[in-house]
């Protein structure tokens, strides 16, 4: 059993690897300290907060843990060692994550002296009723799948009249399962919807260059929150230090909320996020919308197991604001009907769906309507649109809907990512949007139409600005990087189920 106060304190320090630095002598500590041991009394009030969350460390020495202690057994063998930051000013214990080491001859000492980057992950296994413990004392090698990216906060250069996307980030794990032509992303065993939400938010901050303390509200849409009651958004806000921080209380001056509407939980909030930054009295310069899912599906031989062929894992985050916008939000249209095409009852681990009805009266009706109404509203022709992306539960649906609307391959193919990542639920159409933003030129129009079972669609029209190109250099972890990566690891079906089930 984990105790609530301990979990709160551990996650406050460990999730972000918080530390302090003496401004007099420069000595650094992992964990907060009010004074410096070297400078003594005179250093009171002279300690500066630092954290190692965006830093790069060095794995000094390591060993293989082939027999972990009880709570770590499910993790399987892993490499553990000492990570130093700032040339040895601070040393922390660390676990290398994202390696499946079973039945493999591994020269683990080859990891020594290599650069490593902190990852936000689950700490160890607990019982289903316990608080889910997390930590960033989990690292990946900097020259592996996840590159190290600096977080440079930059002053905004230009204010726009229309709110829009200021930055975005997509986080998909290193693991894939390949069946036929289809590839799908698979979480590592210590990942879940919460860790993907935080990592995606981190990527979005890095890409936008926005000061994290200026984000006034964060929305997290997911249908695979490990908790029935407890928001993911609070974790995202605290780990990413969104809004100003009241340090003495350990509280962030930010509004954080979880939203749920099957796969449109995140996209639904785009308009709210954009509206909020537009409203002057809100005093909210930026908002963040995250969609993340460890998409659930029953095992193949069970009821609802068909979904197991399509589900993926990942998250996306979009920051909205009025400054340094890369894509302005031109307009939107949303529609809803009570169509129970896909559902998961309380306390049921896996969702079920209405079979063939999920297409015709559900997906197609809402997506087509939302898109047509939006284009009508904005008086757009098919030729006015450069890119079209819709929700991607499989390959067939989005292709058919695009063709029915009259879009051509070069309009809808760039956003079609389901063949690489699977259906990432709340992250699905946003990941498609991110793939388009990764390549779009200034002054191009993108239409995104999400779909959430239950059912409803949101259609948005976005117009890229000249700043889209200059911000691109800030993001190394692009969709293409995540698809064409030599470090991808392919797993078999039993491993996929084990990893997906998690700790």
């Amino acid at each position, binding site marked *: 059993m984990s105790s609530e106060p301990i979990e709160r304190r*551990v996650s406050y320090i*460990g999730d972000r690897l918080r530390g302090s630095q003496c401004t007099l002598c420069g000595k650094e500590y*992992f964990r907060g300290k009010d004074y410096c041991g070297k400078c003594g009394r005179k250093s009171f009030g002279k300690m500066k907060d630092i954290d190692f969350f965006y830093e790069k460390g060095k794995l*000094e*020495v*390591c*060993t*293989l*843990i*082939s*027999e*972990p*202690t*009880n*709570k*770590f057994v499910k*993790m399987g063998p*892993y490499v*553990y*060692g*000492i*990570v130093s930051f700032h040339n040895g000013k*601070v*040393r*922390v*214990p*660390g*676990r290398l994550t994202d390696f499946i080491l079973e039945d493999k*001859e*591994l020269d*683990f*000492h080859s990891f*020594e002296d290599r650069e490593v980057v902190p990852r936000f992950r689950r*700490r*160890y296994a607990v019982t289903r009723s316990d608080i889910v*413990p997390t*930590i960033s*004392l*989990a690292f990946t090698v900097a020259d592996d799948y996840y590159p190290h990216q600096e977080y440079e906060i930059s002053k905004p250069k230009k204010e726009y009249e229309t709110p829009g996307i200021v930055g975005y980030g997509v986080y998909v794990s290193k693991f894939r399962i390949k069946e036929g032509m289809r590839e799908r992303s698979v979480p590592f065993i210590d990942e879940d919807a919460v860790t993907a939400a935080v990592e995606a938010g981190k990527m979005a901050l890095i890409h936008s260059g926005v000061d994290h303390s200026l984000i006034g509200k964060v929305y997290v849409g997911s249908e695979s929150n490990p908790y029935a009651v407890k928001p993911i958004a609070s974790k995202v806000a605290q780990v990413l230090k969104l809004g100003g921080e009241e340090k003495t209380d350990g509280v962030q001056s930010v509004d954080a909320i979880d939203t749920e509407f099957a796969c449109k939980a995140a996209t639904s909030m785009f308009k709210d996020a954009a509206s909020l930054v537009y409203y002057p009295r809100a005093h909210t310069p930026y908002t963040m919308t995250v969609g993340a899912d460890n998409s659930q599906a029953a095992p193949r031989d069970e009821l609802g197991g068909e979904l197991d062929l399509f589900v993926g894992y990942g998250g996306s985050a979009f920051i909205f604001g009025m400054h340094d916008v890369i894509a302005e939000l031109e307009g939107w249209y949303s529609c809803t009907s009570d169509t129970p095409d896909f559902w998961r009852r309380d306390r049921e681990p896996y969702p079920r769906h209405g079979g063939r009805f999920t297409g015709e009266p559900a997906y197609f009706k809402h997506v087509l309507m939302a898109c047509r109404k939006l284009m009508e509203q904005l008086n757009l022709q098919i030729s006015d649109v450069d890119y079209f992306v819709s929700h991607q539960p499989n390959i067939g649906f989005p292709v058919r809907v695009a063709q029915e609307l009259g879009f051509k391959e070069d309009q809808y193919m760039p956003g079609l990512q389901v063949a690489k990542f699977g259906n990432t639920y709340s992250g699905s159409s946003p990941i498609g949007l991110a793939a388009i933003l990764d390549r779009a030129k200034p002054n191009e129009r993108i239409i995104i139409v999400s779909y959430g079972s239950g059912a409803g669609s949101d259609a948005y029209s976005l117009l890229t600005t000249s700043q889209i190109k200059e911000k691109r250099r800030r993001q190394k972890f692009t969709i293409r990087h995540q698809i064409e990566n030599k470090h991808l690891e392919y797993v078999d079906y039993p491993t996929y189920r084990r990893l997906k089930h998690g700790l």
Partner: protein
Amino acid sequence: MKRRRPAIIGVGRTKFGEHYESGPEKLVEEAGLRALDSAGVGRKDLDACYFSDYFLQITNKIGIEEGFLSELLELHVPMEKMRSLSSALLNACHGVQSGKYGIVLVGGVEKMTDRWDKIRDDLMLLEDPWSYYAGCTPEANHELLLRGYVKKYGISGEQLEKFNVALAQISVKNHHHAIENEYAQYQRDISVDKVLKERSKACKSLGLYDFAPISDGASALILASPEIAKSYSDTPIQVLGSSSATDYVTFPSREDRTGFVASAMAMRSALKMADIEVGDIQIAELYDQSTLLEMISLEDLGFSKRGKAWLDIYNSCKEYQGFYEIDGKKLFVNRNGGLKADGNPLGATGGAQIFEVAKQLKGEAGNRQVEVNGDPPRFGCVSEFEGFGTKAYIHILGRD
């Protein structure tokens, strides 16, 4: 100024290993009675008790051990609970030196197998929580220290092979010593090949035969003031030096991660207190929680030069004669089999180490008795840790 030197007038212990049928009460009773008998004192002569265990609260749901001991002894004298027997002995010495107590019982027990399935998780209480959260195991820091050591001294290639063999020889040697120790958990020989094979099976630099086992057991001793000691024994074993030092619980944040600062500091002050040189010590019981720790201790305590202990061991073990030969001097190390073969019931371990040195100094060690120039050794030292070098205790024992 001549210090008041407390004396050990009796020692007792149980066999270490798995005591499936005996609870901690039985074990404590057995060790305690043996110590009282060997000293020739009765329980009513005791002025105080210092008791040690790490995990009785967890393994046997005994929270206030003093009360448990009071019930067992039917005594109401002052009692204190420590973690390690060395710590209990150190505090008992303070009590005797201050003149407050005349005869003190020092004892320790551990019942680790009562929580067989969870004990490795419990052992993480000896490390810091952050290392635990990051996935540390009871063995991991030993291997990190080894890596740090090997890198610091640039040991590689053929040298590294020798180094690995030297560590294996420690285990082999300790197992060999334990054959003559009727209390030892493992009384059987092993081979260097076997140690190496276990390492390669685990794909690691240290394997099953490099680490001390999980054990149950108890140990006890009777400490007396110098005046009282005279009336009980003609040859009391004096505690010439007793000292401890402390280091950060978080191993990664320590300044030196290739040795134990606390160990070196405790040894220096114990030697000063005993007023002898390190070279005067003829027998040592070192804390070989892993083979590596026995090697590192040789350096920390000043027997071997920094970076050279493994060579001293390697050369001494080519044709092992029962002792290490360091710079032409003989040093008997872990004659009881060490933690590796004698067993390591944490709270009682230090007692078994003291037991061994006291017996050797008295010349009562039977088949495993060592001799220096035909006599039993005169000076011996015991090194014990709490945690991974977080606390280090040194006791120097001697006879007139």
